[in-house]
């Protein structure tokens, strides 16, 4: 299953998007994360992500949206050449 990159609108916290199981997992993660033991990780996950998390997706997606350079078509053609088998 290629290209399964259906992206929900990222107004929801990215954490929920990444972990559809939602809050349960999020809480487990809180316990499992040794990084910031004292800080309520749930809160930071919800408040700090939106601006750049969305940007990260856009960075990635902006490349997906670019037309493929011709060099790729040329390479794909070459693949059928038995010499490349």
């Amino acid at each position, binding site marked *: 299953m290629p290209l399964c*990159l259906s992206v929900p609108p990222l107004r929801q916290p990215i954490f929920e998007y990444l972990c559809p199981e939602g809050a349960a997992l999020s809480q487990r993660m809180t316990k499992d994360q*040794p990084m910031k033991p004292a800080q309520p990780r749930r809160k930071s996950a919800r408040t700090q992500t939106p601006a750049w998390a*969305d*940007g990260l997706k856009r960075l990635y997606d902006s490349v997906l949206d670019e037309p493929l350079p011709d060099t790729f078509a040329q390479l794909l053609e070459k693949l059928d050449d038995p010499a490349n*088998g």
Partner: protein
Amino acid sequence: MAESDIAAPPRPAIDPAAFKRELTGVIPHLRAFARGLCGRADLADDLVQEALLKAWSAQARFEPGTSMRAWTFVILRNAYLTDMRRNRFRADYDEGVAERTLVAPASQEDPMHLSDLHRALLTLPPERREALLLVGAGGFSYEEAAQICGCAVGTIKSRVGRARAALSQMIEDGQIPRRSTDDAVAHAAIMGELEETVQSGTFD
């Protein structure tokens, strides 16, 4: 041990045309992942081409029905690491592409350039950067990302967590590296970390 255990049954080979179709379909994703890894569009595309050729010659090892994207990402990643070590190419940043796409998230006071984010991303240690790319941009699950990177799920979670924390911190503090000067900083950070991981053998 029976004879049959030694001679593994041949895997049902994927039809080359189908393989090529699937391979073609993931090229944009390979380009996006590579761009995130190495920063520069031209180097990224070279890397993708290399990965495509390797994938093509290894097509007998691809299991039909599994994720072509994940499979090729592993190949791309290995090619990247090999090139990093061999050529030590800089994780240079392609200003042009990201600069054209301005991010001004709605309902956000200080709009942020994608190029800022990309630069910030490039300062992260490579294994955190790739973990964040896979999970936060590529949409892979932690489990899939762990398979791609050949490490434990917990390790991926930790890397993503640290990458997110570092980016958040950088953005909060307004300490996003500037264009050219901090390329050196980013580069030093990346190469330093790579050296460590290579030496400790954890990044293979």
